[in-house]
């Protein structure tokens, strides 16, 4: 038996197992990426729901707060920007620049909504309005759901980012373009707003 052949066979065998191992790593990355993409769908549903609620909210407060036009328009514009950003992210949640845009747009929206609610405190009629109360309640619960879904999404993104950073996965990630994914941050303002009063 020719030793060269044996060496050749051994190298081949080891090489083949190595290939499997790499395939395993690659599949692991695909799974981790699809996992956080699926997690984004959770947030997406709730974000859309919130965007749908905002026109109703504007409609409800318009009669009471006619001269706060600026604030109302700020909310309407922020919603428009956020919706555009959300659509981009929904197309590919692994894209960090789109995610950054969404983060900014969301914090803008959160801020303007916060101002709207702060202003609404000055209108006792509005505060007592049943429609307004229901909307506020709806927005809060949506907000809570977004918060929880975002936490899950960020956990999955972190797991993916950590997975792709360790050796030897980082090499496979580099070869096949598994880029680092961005977190969906909760801006401080947004966390506070919109306020709910159970009173």
């Amino acid at each position, binding site marked *: 038996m020719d030793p060269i052949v044996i060496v050749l066979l051994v190298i081949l*065998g080891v090489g*083949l197992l190595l290939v*499997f191992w790499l395939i395993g790593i690659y599949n692991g990355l695909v799974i981790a990426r699809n996992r956080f993409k*699926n997690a984004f769908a959770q947030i997406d549903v709730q974000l859309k729901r919130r965007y749908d609620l905002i026109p109703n909210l504007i409609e409800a407060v318009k009669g009471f707060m006619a001269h706060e036009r600026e604030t109302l328009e700020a909310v309407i514009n922020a919603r428009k920007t956020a919706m555009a950003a959300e659509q981009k992210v929904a197309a590919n949640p692994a894209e960090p620049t789109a995610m950054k845009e969404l983060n900014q747009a969301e914090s803008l929206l959160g801020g303007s909504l916060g101002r709207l609610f702060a202003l609404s405190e000055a209108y006792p009629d509005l505060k007592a309005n049943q429609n307004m109360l229901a909307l506020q309640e709806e927005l809060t619960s949506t907000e809570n759901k977004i918060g929880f*879904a975002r936490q*899950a999404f960020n956990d999955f993104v972190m797991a993916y980012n950590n997975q792709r950073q360790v050796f030897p996965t980082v090499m496979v990630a580099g070869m096949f373009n598994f880029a680092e994914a961005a977190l969906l941050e909760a801006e401080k303002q947004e966390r506070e707003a919109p306020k709910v009063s159970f009173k």
Partner: protein
Amino acid sequence: MATDFFQQQDSARRRTVQLVVYFVLAILVLIALVYGLLLVFGQQRASEPVEWWQPELLMVVAAGVGILVGGASLFKVAQLASGGRDVALMMGGVEVTGTTTDPRQRRLLNIVEEMAIAAGVPVPPVYVLDESGINAFAAGYAPGDAVVAVSQGCLEYLTRDELQGVVAHEFSHILNGDMRLNVRLIALIFGIMVLSAVGRVIMSLGGRRASGSGGRDSRGGIMMLGLGLFVLGLVGAFFGRVIQAAVSRQREHLADASAVQFTRNPDGIGGALKKIGGLKEGSRIANPRAAEIGHMFIANAFAGEGLFGLLATHPPLIARIRALDPQFDGQFPEVRRVDVDRRELEGPRPGRVPPGSKLPGLPGIPQVPQVLLPVLGFADAAAARVGQIDPEAIQHARALFASIPEALRVAAQEPFTARALIYALLLDQRADLRNRQLVRLKGDAEPPDLAATVRLVAPVQALTDNLRLPLLDLAMPALRQMSPPQHQAFRAQVEALMNDDQRVSLFEYTLRCVLHRHLDAQFLPQSSRGPMQSSPQKLVSPMAKALSLLAWEGQPEPEKANRAFDTGMRSFIGDEYTVRLTPREKCGLAEFDVALQTLNQSVPTVKRRIVVACAACIRADKKVTVRETELLRGICDTLDCPLPPLAMVETQ
């Protein structure tokens, strides 16, 4: 053909054992052949005759082939066995969540939810594949970690009845233990295929190496060696595939038959198969990864039947349709997009074929065994229903579904509220204990969690007992969407809430069984199981522990408890047993849990006895309470035997 759940599980398990034996034989033959090949190769290169018996060479060959084929197979098993979710994610599946607003997806979810509650399994996660063909698969290792995935084409081209037929087909795979069998089959063949891959690499390497230095002789020799390995691998894989395809085709026929049995409507699955034939894309799956899991699909995912159908993983479409509809003329219908009819969302229509009548070309519907003794009759009937679905059960599931208040159903669809729902289910009926639990929840959980829980307390407390487990089943997909850290916090919270009242109630125990069993399988690494017990004699002691608790639960008086215990024990092992009823104060849920874990390490036929014995013990006083049925459900769940809710209702 037997359709008893335990027999099906058993036959799937036996087949797996057979396959492993075949596989070991195949490896031995391969080693011998490769050894022979190398000898011929050496003979060709040497001038004098070579020694035919070379132990070192044989060792090298055995080690090489063993490591290569075994390693490749293990790799494949690890890849496919990591749970159904990973398989679906690898295929790029998008999960359909309870919050979906798309009417087609909603319809799919409704169908799966009904079917799951009817079967008594937690609702599996549902995925949609972005493929225009009509195809579907079920993946996962046990009923608990299964997922169902369907192509977008299914949603667009199939009517509700047809979609229900497809889902029923997949449920049959889940309930019959086909998925585990499939994973192993795929892995074994993959391992053998690797050998031919090595041969191919040797051929190309040999060709290249020789073009530089070295004579024509060595080049020819290496090419020959490569070719030899290549052919060996292919031949091995070919025979592997023939076995696999034969097994797979048989399981497909069985799943088709079960789909009809579950829905009692041959037009459902039959119509779906006809549409596959009529559609231009057919059942093709474009994703290249489909090759790895081709056998899991409902119909051939690739073009061509290959070598006179020997390699086809699925029986020919026309044959499958003819089995369901003997009048089929071979003319496939033209397929158009189906609109979602508002009324279709309302729910399933009753089966087309009256109960009990024989279906055309299909094995008869299994008869629930008629046992003379009323007690054992109940127990056997309960066991016979394990893992079975029929239109009545689906109707019943719909009725259960409809009687769950809207607010709770909505809460079950979304992880944030589903969690609160579980907390609310765990809150005690007694106000003082409940307050203590709420105070603790206030300290540990985030304020929004507490608020959501408090909101659900009233509707949950108003819920009738028989709706609590179906509600838990409904909440399962949402709970599975949590991230691992979220699950960890949730798990700790559940444990704390349960222990707050110093005493774990039976419902809490059952809830914990179902929750932990299905969520831990996803979130925590699972240790591999020990050997399977096939003799009931060896399980007498854990069985006695389990029956004791059951007996005391139903009967506070020692005399009656003793009778219930004896009824159960006699059904399990016959008249000859020496164990006695454990005293009441020694019956804790902790020991009960340990006993159940031991009992779970048994083969399906023994599990059937366990279920029958437990049911007999419960039924000994001719009275079955909801609490007892919940406990039986928990036991069955721990034993991986899905018990439909209807099984318990009918007999009351």
